[in-house]
């Protein structure tokens, strides 16, 4: 009998701890337990037989850390084969008459994935794939992925299992006392992602004792439509007379587990500190219990790497601003790969209250698939909102979905056969909530009835791919009311029917409706309210629009969705104060910018108070004010004063007569050690805000940007610290250099490629660790060979002049200002003193 068939009508018992038992048998600290499959097979068989004897249905192979990062390929194969053989011998030797299965045990590989770690997602998939292939070829009954403390790593392992075998896959995560994984995901988020990818059972193991996992188990039982598994520790270990003891004994353990089984847990066992005794107590106590039926939960849900967003009564706001359509500045950012600008749009929307971000980076002249993948990854590095991936390019969609950490929203399919046949297989594989537009081969129907009909067809086709109704969200298409005065009515009618008759969630891009009318936001916001009243679950909208946000808070208050009107009271003031239309996305995050890099954070300089710029004769208040604002690091003031000055002065005059002199005051203060790194950064940020105003103006006037020259900058391969580099970048930009930031952990070839492509005269390399200086040397050598015109500047905590000379760098910069001075010398700019 297949384990899933058995699971349908029965409780399934797992095994207990292995590591603790092996230590008792003499496994040394730091010794790899997987080697015991070959060196001490009799011990492994004995322990596993004891588990079968105690009543376990599933025993895991002793392969927790069996992966290609820890073992050479040949040894890996030998160890896994031996491990499966040991489990099989145990199964045969046991007199227990229960159904018995062998699970290939897979634990985390122990590398943190990018962006926090240095390991690539696809490489992780490859590592797990190898273990899965070997294990599956040995004839195990299922794959057991366990103790995963990172959602992304979990996704890599599950994807590897799904792509390399047809066996059932159980997935178990390790939660901390805060009810979250180490990298932040909660059980609702994990459930969304793992069910989307068709894990056969999900749950929690390790880290904590049964009692502390109560809230985690509750969440799983609430959200999961697949069987829930639980494998806690025997409480916490403590030292008693030089021996390790766990504080939950078999009796108490089995009592706690009984309670969870009564609540609905279907697969139960133990982790660290538990022994066959625990499993025996568990099986004896609970054998007679009637297993609770596993029921499908009707939640429409998406997730990020931290949390899930559920579509219920309260409207979900999907920020629409990451989209180049009609936005000159955004298009320019895409062409220049100014990812910072795009991230800025994301952060501003998050601040303004968006729950989800739509991501559309389609532009004919760029590689959309590559850009979409990059932007999604970069957004996920700093923003924890779920994303709605918005593209008509199927390849781009697949790449983005594959890399996405969580369960994404997919924008979109429609009633066209061809589109559904392309997109639904991706949904089936990676999971996701699909936006379905009610149009088809014949275009957008005028009538509500026809749109509902298309919705039905989409539901039927999705079902062929095993995609449930709850994973479809319908957009009945808001058309321009100024072109057809019945357009809004048809949209609303269709919306109502789909929400209430078909029982599906709905979403609308609401802004279209007001196209061509004056004071558009009034129409858009009113339409939004009407749509909500007709059953709209989510809107793709501009969170910077005060009118929209007012409608949102008012609707929630009026619909009993806002207890004591608390959210309304807390938030409405900031919108109500704005009488006009869009709130300026001021405050918070200005766009542009990007961190800098540096050489030796912490190797700051000492000194006194910030320098002062005297306001010379003939200067206006705004002029001297701007210099002061920059010196003092006042971001908002700097932006405002620049905007004021732009009314009367040429952008470049402001740069040359205000911004640069102010920066020099600070730069000199820094060099003379009367100002320190934090202050240098503060003024750099303020000048960045001033620059953003200037860029906005220049991009409007289409005038040319003046650059002092290209500067390629990177943290070298193997090094993931980039604060130093980011600081240098920022200061260089302030001084007018066109900086191409390659990021961190950059291979030598990539640096050379960028320098050659852009014929950059200057390259900055940063390294923080002695271990990565060799990578710096390799990069320089390659540059000398392939791009001999480029001067290399190096910096970083471990570097010295001597080191720099040794590795052949043209210049050693002790800090950001030194880099600027050198760069100006090389490009022939005058050097202000």
């Amino acid at each position, binding site marked *: 009998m297949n384990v899933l068939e058995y699971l349908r009508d029965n409780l399934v018992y797992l095994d207990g701890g292995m590591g603790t038992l092996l230590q008792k048998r003499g496994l040394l600290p730091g010794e790899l337990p997987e080697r015991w499959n070959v060196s001490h097979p009799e011990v492994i068989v004995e322990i596993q037989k004891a588990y079968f004897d105690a009543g376990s249905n599933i025993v895991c192979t002793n392969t927790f850390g069996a992966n290609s990062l820890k073992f050479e390929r040949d040894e890996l194969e030998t160890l896994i084969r031996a491990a499966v053989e040991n489990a099989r011998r145990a199964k045969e030797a046991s007199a227990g008459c229960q159904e018995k299965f062998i699970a290939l045990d897979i634990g985390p590989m122990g590398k*943190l994935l990018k962006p926090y770690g240095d*390991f690539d997602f696809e490489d992780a998939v490859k590592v797990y794939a190898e273990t899965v292939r070997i294990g599956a070829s040995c004839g195990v009954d299922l794959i057991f992925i366990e103790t995963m403390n990172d959602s992304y790593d979990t996704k890599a392992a599950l994807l590897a299992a799904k792509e390399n075998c047809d066996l059932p896959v159980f997935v178990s995560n390790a939660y901390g006392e805060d009810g979250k994984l180490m990298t932040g995901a909660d059980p609702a988020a994990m459930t969304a992602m793992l069910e989307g990818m068709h894990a056969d059972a999900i749950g929690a193991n390790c880290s904590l004792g049964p009692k502390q996992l109560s809230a985690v188990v509750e969440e799983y039982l609430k959200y999961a439509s697949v069987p829930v598994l639980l494998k806690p520790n025997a409480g916490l270990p403590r030292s008693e007379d030089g021996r390790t003891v766990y504080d939950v004994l078999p009796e108490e353990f089995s009592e706690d587990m009984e309670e969870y089984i009564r609540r609905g847990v279907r697969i139960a066992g133990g982790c660290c500190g538990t022994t066959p005794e625990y499993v025996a107590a568990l099986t004896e106590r609970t054998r007679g219990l009637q297993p609770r039926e596993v029921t499908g939960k009707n939640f429409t849900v998406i997730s990020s790497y931290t949390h899930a967003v559920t579509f219920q009564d309260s409207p979900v706001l999907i920020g629409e601003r990451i989209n180049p359509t009609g936005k000159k500045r955004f298009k320019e950012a895409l062409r220049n790969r100014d990812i910072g600008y795009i991230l800025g749009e994301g*952060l501003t929307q998050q601040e303004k209250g968006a729950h989800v971000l739509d991501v559309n980076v389609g532009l004919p002249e760029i590689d959309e698939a590559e850009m979409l993948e990059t932007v999604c990854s970069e957004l996920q590095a700093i923003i924890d909102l779920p994303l709605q991936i918005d593209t008509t390019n199927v390849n781009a969609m697949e790449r983005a979905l594959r890399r996405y950490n969580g369960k994404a929203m997919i924008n979109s399919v429609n009633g066209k056969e061809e589109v559904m046949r392309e997109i639904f297989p991706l949904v089936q594989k990676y999971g996701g909530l699909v936006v379905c537009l009610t149009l088809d081969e014949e275009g957008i129907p005028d009538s509500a009835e026809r749109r509902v009909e298309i919705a039905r067809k989409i539901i039927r086709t999705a079902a062929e791919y095993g995609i449930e109704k709850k994973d479809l969200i319908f957009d009945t298409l808001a058309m321009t009311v100024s072109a057809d005065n019945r357009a809004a009515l048809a949209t609303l009618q269709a919306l109502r029917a789909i929400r209430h008759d078909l029982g599906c969630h709905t979403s609308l891009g609401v802004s279209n409706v007001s196209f061509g009318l004056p004071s558009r936001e009034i129409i858009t916001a009113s339409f939004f309210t009407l749509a909500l009243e007709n059953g709209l679950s989510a809107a793709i909208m501009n969170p910077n629009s005060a009118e929209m946000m007012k409608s949102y808070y008012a609707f929630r208050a009026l619909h009993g969705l806002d207890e004591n009107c608390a959210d309304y009271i807390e938030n409405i003031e900031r919108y109500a104060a704005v009488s006009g239309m869009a709130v300026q996305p001021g405050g918070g995050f200005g766009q542009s910018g990007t961190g800098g890099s540096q050489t030796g954070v912490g190797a700051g300089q*000492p000194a006194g108070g910030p320098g002062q710029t005297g306001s010379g004769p003939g200067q206006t208040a705004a002029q001297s004010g701007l210099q002061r604002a920059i010196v003092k690091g006042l971001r908002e003031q700097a932006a405002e004063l620049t905007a004021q000055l732009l009314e009367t002065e040429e952008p470049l005059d402001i740069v040359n007569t205000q911004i640069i002199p102010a920066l020099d005051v600070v730069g000199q203060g820094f060099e003379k*050690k009367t100002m320190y790194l*934090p*202050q240098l*950064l503060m003024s750099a940020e303020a000048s960045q805000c001033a620059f953003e105003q200037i860029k906005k103006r220049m991009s409007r006037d289409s005038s040319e940007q003046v650059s002092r020259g290209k500067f390629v900058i990177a943290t070298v391969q193997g090094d993931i610290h980039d*604060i130093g580099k980011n600081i240098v970048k920022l200061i260089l930009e302030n001084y007018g250099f066109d900086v191409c930031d390659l990021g961190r952990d950059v291979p030598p070839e990539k640096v050379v490629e960028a320098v050659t492509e852009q014929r950059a005269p200057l390259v900055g390399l940063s390294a923080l*660790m002695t271990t990565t200086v060799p990578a710096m040397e390799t990069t320089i050598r390659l540059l000398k060979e392939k791009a001999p015109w480029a001067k290399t500047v190096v910096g970083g905590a471990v570097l010295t002049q001597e080191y720099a000379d040794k590795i052949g760098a043209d210049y050693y910069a002790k800090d950001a200002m030194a880099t600027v001075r050198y760069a100006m010398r090389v490009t022939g700019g005058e050097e202000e003193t």
Partner: protein
Amino acid sequence: MMENTVFVRNYAGAEELYPVNEREVWRYSGFRGTQDQVDGELRKVFVQVQEELKDAFSYKVCFRRMPVAWEEGIAKLPFGSDSRDLRRCLEGSSEIVIFAATVGLAVDRYIAKYQKFQPTKALLMQAYGAERVERLCELFCGEIRREAAEEGLKCTPRYSPGFGDLPLTVQRDVFRLLECDRKIGISLNESLLMTPSKSVTAVFGLGKDVKRGQL
């Protein structure tokens, strides 16, 4: 039987036990002036940083206590290094404690976020995180010191891979011995950097008659 388990300690609420040492934060940030030279604007940013990171830290330590044998003045340590500096530090101990401490990944996320848009904030967050993990080490070492005192043992100062002649490569041994990734979620990359970045690993000795005592 030899003590053979990695223990984990959580320090929720460590903020209250060990309030921030502002001077140290400023020092880590690169500010070398006196406290009263921190001007208003900068101080404002630090107040924001503290507010934002209020719930961001997750203080955890994992450790292992092991006996140490001395042969002709050379300690037999479970590391791939024979560091004289470490030996000197441990002189007179009969056991060692190896530990790893972290304040969690959340602060790294904040740093990554602000690095691109408000690098000053990112810098102060770096400094604040570094200060927090130092406090955590003090908290943990203080606890062990008190527990050891009950057994009549004294502690040596702590010593970290990368100090003196103890090479950073020893991190691999420390990670193998402590299973840091599994126990408290620290991982080590190819360049021997730890993530979360605000993490510390170290070793110290315990003995009746240690040469150097903990401060």
